[in-house]
């Protein structure tokens, strides 16, 4: 995930408006990025209620937090990292209610021509059941596309540790999905 992209002038203007506390600007930012924040939070916390809390906390705090962003690098990359950190906090402070959403999945299973299709319903369950540390690395790397260096920084671990956790997560998933 690259963090080097500069903001377009239009986006910079939008972010400045949000930082000034203008509600319409915040609404627009929510429309553009709310789904991303919610997706990250849901994947990490495995709880719709916790994901909603994270989403709200992030956007309620965004105008003030943008002052520390300072328009350096990609806003989306920065926002994703904030969403990850807020989700990690939530995971440690709230009772976890494990909720697995099966909506719209069953029909999509095994529709692919790939050599070894993975049953996504099973996969979703297996990801939800991963130990927290392994799930965090797997979600951040495989779903959200963070690099091992970025994950190491986010989780305050070493790059090698992030790699090992990803391998372990894959191994657990492979076992749970009934493959060698």
């Amino acid at each position, binding site marked *: 995930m690259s963090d080097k992209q500069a903001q377009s002038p239009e986006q910079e203007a939008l972010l400045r408006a949000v930082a000034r506390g203008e*509600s319409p600007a915040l609404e627009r930012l*929510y429309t553009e990025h*709310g*789904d991303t924040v*919610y*997706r990250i939070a849901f994947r990490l916390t495995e709880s719709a209620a916790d*994901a*909603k809390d994270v*989403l*709200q906390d992030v*956007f*309620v*705090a965004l*105008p*003030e*937090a943008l002052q520390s962003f300072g328009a350096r690098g990609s806003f989306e990359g*920065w926002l994703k*990292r*904030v969403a990850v*950190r*807020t989700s*990690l*906090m939530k*995971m*440690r402070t*709230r*009772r*976890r209610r494990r909720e697995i*959403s099966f*909506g719209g999945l069953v029909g*999509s299973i095994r529709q692919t021509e*790939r*050599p*070894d299709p*993975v049953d*996504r319903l099973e*996969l979703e369950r297996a*990801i939800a059941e991963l130990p927290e*540390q392994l799930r*965090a690395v797997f979600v951040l*790397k*495989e779903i959200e596309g963070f690099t091992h260096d970025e994950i190491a920084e986010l*989780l*305050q*671990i*070493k790059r*090698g*540790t992030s*790699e*090992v956790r*990803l*391998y*372990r997560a*894959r*191994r*657990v*998933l*492979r*076992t749970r999905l009934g493959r*060698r």
Partner: protein
Amino acid sequence: MSVRMRIHPSYRELNRLADRALDEERLREVRQHLGACQSCRNEVALMRNLGRAAREISHPSPPDDALSQIMGRRAAGDRVILPVASALRASSRRRAIGIAAGIGGALLAAALLLLPASEASAGASDLRFDPAQPEPGDHIEVTYLPSSALAAEDVLYLRGAFRRAGDPVPRGGLPGAFRVELHPNPNGTFTGTLQMPDDVVFGYFAVENKPASKIDVKNGRFWPLLAHGDGKPTRDALREQLQVLDKNDVDFGLTAARMLVKHYPDDVMGRHRKLSYEAMTAIGKELERLNALREGRLLALHQTDHAAPAVVRLDAELEDKTVPEQLEVLEGEWMRARFSDDYIVARAFRLAREGQDPEAVLRWARRHNRVRPHEAGDIAETLARFPTLREPAKDGLRAELRRVEVAAAERRYLTETTEELMLRDRLRVRSLFGRLGRLLFEEGRYDAAIDTLELAIREGWDPDAFRSLAESYAAAGDTSEALTLFAYVVAGESDRVARRELESALQHRFAALLTDELEWSSRVAESSKQIDRRRIEEIGRPIRPSGNPTVHTRKGERRALEEVVGDEISVVVLWAGPPSLLLEAIKGDLSRTTSLHALGTNIITITENQASPELDQLMADAGLTFPVFYDQRWEAARSLNSLGVPYYYVVDRHGGFYFAEDMNRAIRLAQSLLRAADAAA
């Protein structure tokens, strides 16, 4: 295809390939292998498909009312501080200062909430007492900030025990005497109250869930509660803390000893222990300096302090005496101590046993059982080694069996889950039945021996019990059953030479029955599988290193222990910390692991020795090719609370460390895990 290419790439390499992170040189080799290996191709395809499929999983959209609630909260003036990077770094500093200054729970909780994930699982929980400096008789409010593993419980329990001054020091694990209910609060903490009885000086605690399946023991250090007087911990409280908890952890022992000396500089026990711990935790030249200093100081303590520990005085009195003479001295001490000194009784029993004096053994065993009734089973097992003491031994074993059969909550150690207590009891029952059965066998009572040993082997794999049972069946004339059991004994022997010798002896003894070599091999193989299952069932809970310890490579690069261990089954030989030991001393042990190495098990050696050409040469001479890591500051050793040498661990594929008492057990367990993994595959 080259030999190298016929060997499958490691799981890590396949992962790196799937992630397109393999270096160029190796990439070519692995690709070449993949061209000819369907199994590895499938593996890489599955790894990539996992990621692709995970990205395609749909996720629910944000609830429709989320935006209106956000705008409503902002309009109402609600503000939240987000953990952006700078706030996270600041929070780490705040935490360290907050704990040191002992500031209020709210700030501590806020600081802990901002901890990075890796620390939160290791030590984010906290237990606070109010008042923090209680006096005996006080009612105490307990607030627990839960670890992530316990945060989702509806109710938690503070479990622990109080101690009076001079209570016997527990052997083995620390017992828990009572539980206090802790109720959840909206802020995520749990609270409850307890009263410190009038006559106690010290308490130690852990927190567990209702069925006692999850326990927070503060990384094995427990939470202490010290009785205070005149605004400081009482001398008895600090002494009890030192006596009870220091065995678990050298660092804690040193802290506790320093605390005692700080508040009571004249305390001989504190000074004595402080000097010992300082010497134990020092390294290199500092150690030499402290050892020299310690000798001088201890000498001075002995000469000037009339209250020098009784143990030191007794040591001096027993020096240069024969065993019978020492026992005579201890007999006098026992009389003077009015029949209650548990140190004397333990020491005298050990001496009598070493002196092979059955009469003295029985006399001191009876005294031992009066003073330490909870160790009566161990004593009975010792008596069983003396032919003339078989009857009291059998009585003692039967009494212990009756005691273990009663599932008593108070027998559960503070660190132990209910399941672990049940496992410990199973192992205990197995050992007791095994010993009793062997005694009956030695007496020629084969039917009774068979009945008793059958009960022993029902509780799990015990090579001695299987061998005794096999011999009992053979002696009773049932050679078919005897051979079935001998197959287990052969399968359980990890040493190839010993195994060949055993099989050869059996061939000689049962020549008429062992004519079909193939049938015998398949019987041994089946027995081997069953033993593996039993071993794996019994390995219990893995240990996780606390914190994120690192070790150094030969070139001085820092590597996380978690990364070093990797994701394959590994045997870790760890020797660091006092007493220091050179690699040479255990190279024999290490050379035995080469067979495991050949099977694909990682062998990782971690030493406090310094990297040197001599060490390299030693490894080369011993034919050892696996990597050595360096832990000169004992980071890894402390994280596993494994100071002292050597420690053997088997690490599973999920990074769980299983302690093995010696290299034999480590090898057997690693073999079992490997075979189980192969069977699962």
